[in-house]
């Protein structure tokens, strides 16, 4: 070994050695799975700032607005959304189980729990739609109406995107050799789903519990 490589080993962080191995992927259109996951995580961090901005706006409006609830509206019904919340949060566990099954190469176990997650996500969306259709106020009814629909709608859009991603991953699980090059698709969909869940918990506390 020449001094160069000793030098290299002393200074290099694990990321560098990894980058070395991954580098050949780069020229062919997309990064290695490790890079993809890294990129996806920072994307989610950035995405969370949009939600935090909306949350901040909500808090400012709620604490300073002269008229908060529209006329005739007393507050929000909590029971149905609470059930919805339980279902959405539970789906974080089912998607985790699905991932574990995939990890031990039990494809049918994976598909079963994956499908269950999809069902729970879809039920959440359905519950949300029902709630919206029964509300006495619209998005033009003051800043309360605006922020309520903005937050739940923007989050609902993410749930919808998550369900779509899950469907794609489900279909792709039937392609032979789909997981030969890693499980990035499933892992990132699952991470996205946890993200959507955590956002909902904050949202639920802000909108429904803190009334």
């Amino acid at each position, binding site marked *: 070994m*020449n001094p*160069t*490589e000793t*030098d*290299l080993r002393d*200074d*290099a*962080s694990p*990321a*560098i*050695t*990894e*980058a*070395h191995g*991954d*580098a*050949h992927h*780069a*020229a062919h*259109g*997309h*990064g290695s799975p*490790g*890079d*993809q996951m*890294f*990129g996806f995580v*920072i*994307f989610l*961090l*950035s*995405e*969370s*700032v*949009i939600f935090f*901005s*909306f949350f901040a*706006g909500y808090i*400012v*409006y709620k604490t*300073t*607005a*002269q*008229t908060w609830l529209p006329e005739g509206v007393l507050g929000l019904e909590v029971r149905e959304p609470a059930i919805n919340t339980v279902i959405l949060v539970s789906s974080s566990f089912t998607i985790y189980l699905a991932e574990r099954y995939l990890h031990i190469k039990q494809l049918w176990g994976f598909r079963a729990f994956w499908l269950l997650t999809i069902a729970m996500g879809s039920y959440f969306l359905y519950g949300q739609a029902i709630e919206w259709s029964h509300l006495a106020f619209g*998005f*033009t009814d*003051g*800043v309360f*109406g*605006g*922020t309520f629909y*903005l937050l739940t709608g923007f989050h609902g859009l993410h749930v919808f995107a998550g369900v779509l991603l899950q469907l794609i991953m489900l279909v792709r699980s039937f392609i032979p050799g789909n997981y030969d090059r890693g499980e990035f698709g499933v892992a990132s969909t699952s991470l996205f789903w946890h993200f959507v869940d955590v956002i909902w918990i904050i949202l639920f506390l802000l909108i429904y519990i803190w009334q």
Partner: protein
Amino acid sequence: MPGAPNDWQRFFSFSTDHKVIGIQYLVTSFFFFLVGGIFAMIIRGELITPESDLVDRTVYNAMFTMHGTVMLFLWTFPCLLGLGNYLVPLMIGARDMAFPRLNAIAFWMVPVFGTILMASFLVPGGPAQAGWWAYPPVSLQNPTGNLINGQMLWLLAVAISGVSSIMGAVNFVTTIARMRAPGMTWFRMPVFVWTVLAAQIIQLFGLPALTAGAVMLLLDLTVGTTFFDPAKGGDPVLFQHFFWFYSHPAVYVIILPIFGIFSEVLPVYARKPLFGYKVVAISSLIITGLSAIVWVHHMFASGTPGWMRMVFMATTMLISVPTGIKVFAWVATIWGGKLRLSTAMLFALGGLVMFVFSGITGIMLAAVPVDIHVNNTYFVVGHFHYVIYGAVVMGIYAAIYHWFPKMTGRMYSEGLGKLHFALTFIGTNLNFFPMHPLGLQGMPRRVASYDPEFTFWNVVASLGAFLLGMSTLPFILNMIGSWVQGEKAPKNPWRAIGLEWLLSSPPTVENFEELPIVVSEPYGYGKSDPLVSNPDELEVAHEPN
């Protein structure tokens, strides 16, 4: 070879080569620089007389709105992304960005939103006229009542620009964190890479706030929500918070890579290492951190409570410390060196001088009692343009001249370059210095007409602006002429130290045949240590053509 007649098409294709994308960014953004410049000429043409006589007031208002928007979102941002795209993979020893396809998509969104923005000239009611801050309620007024209006298209363009920037930021951060060549440790990265990293982190945490504000404004404007409409219980000041939470750090997104360019260019032409490399590198990240907590200094007169004014005055003052460290480091870098005043060096030094001036006026603006007087006057406009033209555009020119041989394989003309520098330096000062006395005298920004007492300095500024407009001509001539028939450039015409200078000019598609193994610190001027242990294996040997 770029410039060869059968090869130019790839610059118009969906290429995933970071070097092609880099040049695509540079050329596209320069086109929009000229567009924004024409708007500026109209603005200065109107202001050469006190009366509103050259164009209608609505046209004038559209001009300064579009001038600001184009110069930021379509010139400085994409131009610096272009430089980053071209240089970062080369500087860290990577074959491309982490996500080349994403890179190409992010670039092609630029002409798309540029077109949307320009298309707003064609809709009834004209383009947005609420300034580039788009403060409601003015931005919500929409006198035509149409759903498709200038402000709406403006918001759409800004939103697409945001998506494109986030894609770019994810790509840059991933590339820098994970694609470095063996031996390229964090503290062996050139400072330009550090500053790009610091700038792109700002994009990641700051831009979503603007997106949030823009979405809410768009909903107010189109579907009738009432977030920012005070007549219906909304809060217009909240938008200002969303806007400045991003748009102040956005200035750092622009200036940080310029700090990187200064740090690259000055050592090469002074033949000395960058003074205090680690401190300069780290201070970029400190600036990133502090930039998230200074935004309210734009709102000292917006009905901000006293305690908030004091807190943000303190943070704003504080951010000048890491910035000052950098300036002193650059001065120490050139001190005792062996300077060669090439065009790139002249631009870097000129930019540095004007940056120092803008830093001092920046401290004045941070002091709340002074700010209350000069806020929203031409003093702020002058300060900002010393930053954005004096430092940023001069820095961009320095970078373009410095890396021109690497990008094109041709040498530029020093004579034309120096003429360009002289015109730019004189024009910039002539144009933007008079704005300071105007502001102190109390001339508000964004006015189409003004009291006759302000005439003298406005005439000077307008003449300076026209000189600046002319100054781009030798540049364009130099770039096109040199690219077509300049002298062939060797690998390393400036005897610079850096991975990109070990490759042929321009580098091949894959950059490195064999990845470099980096064995020493950057900026090893005055020392003869090799930068990499395998300099001869980086490229396949081929006969020079």
